[in-house]
C-alpha cells in the first residue's frame, strides 16, 4: 500500500521495503528517498528487482513489508516497450489521461497534447497509430503521455534499451529537457551508464535484494564501493557474481 502524505519531506520515500515473489526475496529492507526535481537511477543486473521498484511506486503491486510514502499520487510512467494503446492514434493516446481524469475542454486538451509532442520533437505524428512509429518514436510518445498531465512523479522503465545510440541520446535529452521543465521527482530504471551520467542525480545499485550502493553517479567509479566500481566498469571481477567464467 502507498501512503499519500502531502506534507512529506520527500516526494518519494521507501522505508524498509521488502518484496518477495514465492520464496524469492526480490527486495530486502530497501530504503531511499527522491526529492523534487531530482532523478534517481535504479541499476543492477537483470532480474534484480529494478522494475519491481517502479511497479511498487506506480501502485501496480503491493509490498510485503515497509512503507512507501509519496507526497503526491499524480504519476506518469514511460514503459520499456512504450505500452501505447494500438487502437488509438498518437494524439488520442496522449490525450487519454486528460480526457479520463480532468474536466479540460477539447481545445485545452489539444493544446496540451501539442505542447507534449513539441517537447519530445514529434509534432506531425498526431494522427498516426503506434504500429506506424519506430520503437524510439513510440518511447517518446510514451514520455509525452507520461508528462501531459504534469505529474509530480515520473517513472522511466529502461528508456534507452533496444535503441540505437543516436535515438538513445535523443531520449536522454528528452529526459533532461523534461527534468528542467517539470518540477517532478523521477526514477529511471536502466543499465545504461550514459543515461545515468547525463540524467540521474542519484544512483542506487541493487544486488541480491540489497541496496549495495547509494550515491551520486560520479561517485560510482571514484568511491571505495566495490559494487559501484564493478557495475560502472562492467567488470566480471568483483563482489557481484553475474558473469560466467570461460
Amino acid at each position: 500500500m502507498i501512503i499519500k502524505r502531502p506534507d512529506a519531506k520527500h516526494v518519494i520515500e521507501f522505508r524498509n521495503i521488502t518484496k518477495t515473489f514465492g520464496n524469492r526475496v526480490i527486495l530486502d529492507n530497501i530504503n531511499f528517498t527522491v526529492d523534487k526535481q531530482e532523478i534517481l537511477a535504479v541499476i543492477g543486473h537483470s532480474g534484480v528487482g529494478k522494475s519491481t521498484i517502479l511497479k511498487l511506486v506506480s501502485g501496480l503491486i503491493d509490498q510485503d513489508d515497509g512503507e512507501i510514502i509519496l507526497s503526491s499520487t499524480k504519476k506518469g510512467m514511460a514503459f520499456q516497450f512504450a505500452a501505447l494503446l494500438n487502437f488509438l492514434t498518437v494524439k488520442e493516446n496522449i490525450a487519454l489521461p486528460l480526457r479520463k481524469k480532468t474536466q479540460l475542454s477539447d481545445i485545452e486538451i489539444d493544446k496540451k497534447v501539442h505542447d507534449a509532442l513539441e517537447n519530445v520533437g514529434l509534432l506531425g505524428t498526431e494522427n498516426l497509430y503506434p504500429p506506424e512509429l519506430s520503437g524510439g518514436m513510440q518511447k517518446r510518445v510514451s514520455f509525452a503521455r507520461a508528462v501531459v498531465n504534469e505529474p509530480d512523479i515520473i517513472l522511466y522503465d529502461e528508456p534507452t534499451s533496444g535503441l540505437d545510440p543516436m535515438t538513445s541520446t535523443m531520449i536522454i535529452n528528452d529526459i533532461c529537457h523534461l527534468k528542467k521543465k517539470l518540477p517532478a521527482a523521477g526514477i529511471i530504471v536502466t543499465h545504461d551508464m550514459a543515461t545515468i551520467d547525463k540524467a540521474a542525480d542519484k544512483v542506487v545499485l541493487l544486488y541480491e535484494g540489497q541496496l549495495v550502493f547509494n550515491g551520486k553517479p560520479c561517485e560510482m567509479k571514484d568511491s571505495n564501493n566495490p559494487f559501484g566500481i564493478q557495475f560502472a566498469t562492467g567488470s566480471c571481477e568483483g563482489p557481484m557474481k553475474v558473469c560466467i567464467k570461460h
Partner: protein
Amino acid sequence: MAAFSKNNLLNRFQNILYMVGQSYLNLYRAFCTAFKGKVSFKDFMYQASVRGVDSIIIILITCIFIGMALALHMTNELIETYGAETAVGGLIALAITRELAPVVTAIVIAGRVGASITAEIGSMKVTEQIDALRVMEIDPVDYLVVPRLLAGATITPLMTIIATIAAILSAMYLSFFYKELDPAIFLASVQEMLNTKDVFVSILKASCFGILIVTIASTFGLNVKGGADAVGVYTTKTVVWSLIVIFITNYIITSIFYGA
C-alpha cells in the same frame, strides 16, 4: 496419471473458482459503471459495429444451412410419413426460435467475438498496456470491458433475430423447392405455432449469452500471464468455457420457461 493427481485436480478446481469469482466481480463492476452512465457512446458504437460485422456473415451462413437441413428432416418425416404439411413451418420455427438460433448464434459469437476479445485484451496485458491504464488511474474494466459488454448484450439478440429469420426463410424455400410445400401454408403454420413468449425467451437467452461470453472473454483476457503463447492458451479457454456456460445457461432458461 500426473494430470489426475489429487494436487493437480485441486489446483484446477481452485483456478476454476478463481475465474468464476473474477468473472462475477468484473460483471458486477461493469454493470455498476453501465448503470451510472459512465460509458463512452463512441466506444460502445465502435465495439457493436465491429463485433457485429465480424460475425454476421458466419451466423447467416450457419443458420441458413441449419434451417435447410432441418427442413429436409421435417419435410421427409412430417409430409411423407404423417402427411402433416401444415405442421412443418410451425415446428421448424419453434425449433429454430426456441433453441437453434440463440444457441448457434452464441456459439459463433463465442468463437468469433469472445476469442477476439480475449486475444485483444490478453495482448494488451502482456504488452503492459493494461498496466499503463492502471498507472493513469483508468480502470481497465470501465474502459475496456464495459463497452464490449454492452456491445455483446446488444448485438447477440440482434444477430439472433437475423439468424432466426434467415433460418426460417431458408427452410421455407427448401420446403418449396424440395417438396413443393406452399410458402403460404408454411408461413401460416409459423404464425399459428410461434408465439410472443418464444420470441421473448429467444431474445432473453441471446442477451444472457452475449453478456456471459463477453464477461468470460474479458476475464480471461485480463488474467493472461506470460507471453504471446499464453494469449493463445487463454483464447482457447475462453471458447471452451463459453460453450460450456452457453449450454448450461440454455438449459436453465429453457427449464424456467418451458419446464413446467
